[in-house]
């Protein structure tokens, strides 16, 4: 497709992304704004830090912060998950690395992955926001620096994730 140099998205992918864009524009998820969808295969979403605290009496960890989320659709979307990562500076969270990679099973397919073609960018954005809203420990994952060095220039989809921590 001349529109996307070096890429050949399927017609299924193109029409599905277009349908999701239409749905998003009609019903955007709370606290999120689509900053850019040009080219159509690469979206940038502005995510507001949730203003509420995880429980009464606990601090509001991300109130007033603003993050950028990059969504890069593959040629075979939605059979494969889109690449989803925060544009640094990423939120400080035990499941988010400083390079923006996110440890969340629904973002990945394969052995441990939880991706489903019934998920949409809208639902992904909601999941990430609730991941921030429920956090009580504003810290980076263990081995953050090491991970960022090892994965420099690589997509988070190439990481062999382990999703064993349901507590955070």
């Amino acid at each position, binding site marked *: 497709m001349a529109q996307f140099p070096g890429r050949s998205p399927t*017609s*299924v992918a193109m029409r599905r992304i277009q*349908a999701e864009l239409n749905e998003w524009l009609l019903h955007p998820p709370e606290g999120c704004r689509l900053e850019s969808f040009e080219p159509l295969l690469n979206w940038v979403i502005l995510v507001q830090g949730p203003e509420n605290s995880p429980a009464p009496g606990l601090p509001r960890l991300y109130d007033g912060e603003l993050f950028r989320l990059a969504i890069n659709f593959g040629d075979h979307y939605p059979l494969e998950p889109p690449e989803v990562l925060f544009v640094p500076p990423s939120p400080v969270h035990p499941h988010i690395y400083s390079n923006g990679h996110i440890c969340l099973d629904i973002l990945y397919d394969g052995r441990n992955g939880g991706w489903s073609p019934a998920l949409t960018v809208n639902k992904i954005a909601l999941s990430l926001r609730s991941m921030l809203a429920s956090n009580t420990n504003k810290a980076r994952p263990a081995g953050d620096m090491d991970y960022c060095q090892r994965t420099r220039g690589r997509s988070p989809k190439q990481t062999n994730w382990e999703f064993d921590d349901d507590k955070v």
Partner: protein
Amino acid sequence: MTFDVEIVRWHAVASWTWNAGDDVCGICRMPFDGCPPDGKYPGDDSPVVWGVCGHAFHLQCIQKWLQSQAQTDQRCPFCRRAWEFKAAAPSS
């Protein structure tokens, strides 16, 4: 008083819809009454199928998803229960 009426021309219009409970296919997000992105005609050429879990998809769409998954791990995209085709569409 009665009239004798002779029908010269008769033009019937019918409407149909898939009884799928949802408006759009959860995989391609196209209306069930339309066709999936790689289908040409709605209706019998773009059939809607159900899993035993009750979730419906275009046949083309669910087949592509199942083919992309391991043989041993075929699940419904909505509820993640093991996917099994329901024998026939439910009638109401």
